[in-house]
């Protein structure tokens, strides 16, 4: 199971590199969405690994509510880009 987590950490490095390199704001938002989902799934894996329900509930809440913040930020950035046009 440790190997699984190490593989997930390596997979997490891919969108972090993408967010660092790409200058386009929407590519950065995509990388943010990818990282937010990956980290919450990693929290769920750790909770199963340790048989800890408290961490598991936290992971579920972060996984479900984290996308709402992403949507709010995307709307604000979209309106900024529309104002420039």
């Amino acid at each position: 199971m440790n190997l699984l987590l190490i593989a997930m950490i390596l997979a997490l490095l891919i969108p972090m590199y993408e967010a660092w390199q790409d200058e386009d704001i929407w590519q950065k938002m995509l990388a943010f969405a990818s990282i937010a989902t990956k980290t919450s799934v990693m929290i769920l894996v750790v909770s199963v690994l340790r048989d800890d329900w408290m961490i598991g509930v936290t992971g579920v809440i972060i996984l479900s509510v984290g996308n709402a913040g992403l949507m709010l930020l995307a709307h604000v950035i979209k309106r900024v880009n529309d104002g420039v046009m």
Partner: protein
Amino acid sequence: MIDNYITAIVALLPLAAIMLTVQVNPYNALVIRGILGAVAALVYAVLGAADVALTEAMVGTMLSITLYAVAVRSSLVMRLGVLQDGQSEAKPIPDTASPLIEKLRAVARKYHLRLELVPYPDRQSLNQALLEKEVHVTCVAQSSPLETSQPYQTMTRIRRLHDIFQTELSALTTLTYLTPPTSGEQ
């Protein structure tokens, strides 16, 4: 007792923090701040602090970056007062000023500003708006364009914008720096 995957997860946190500090564009920095919040929530949950992780995910990545995006959007703006065309009400931007406005837009994008055009009916209300701090810059076409090589006349009341324009577009317009009538905040 400490597994080696915990070390690898905790090492992600300074990596994301360094990524955040090297950003120049404020909007990109906000997105990276969201990534930092997600990684921090992961680290807190793995280390056993579920309540701290939940707070970081709710406040750090949702509330704070949304509020900061609104704040950056409303503060990083350069309002440009222009004269309205008398004939066409629907089109507030006069055609004669369009090359200068394109240039101003390029300069504003370079400094991560947002250019907002504010139309005014005549020259007097334009100057009044500049004095009353409704706009930052005013831009009008020169009344006799044949006499000079600079076809536009630009006035600003902000020293920093004046310095930027002097280096960027002195070939296209004459620049006037308007000293604020009341000494104090600018």
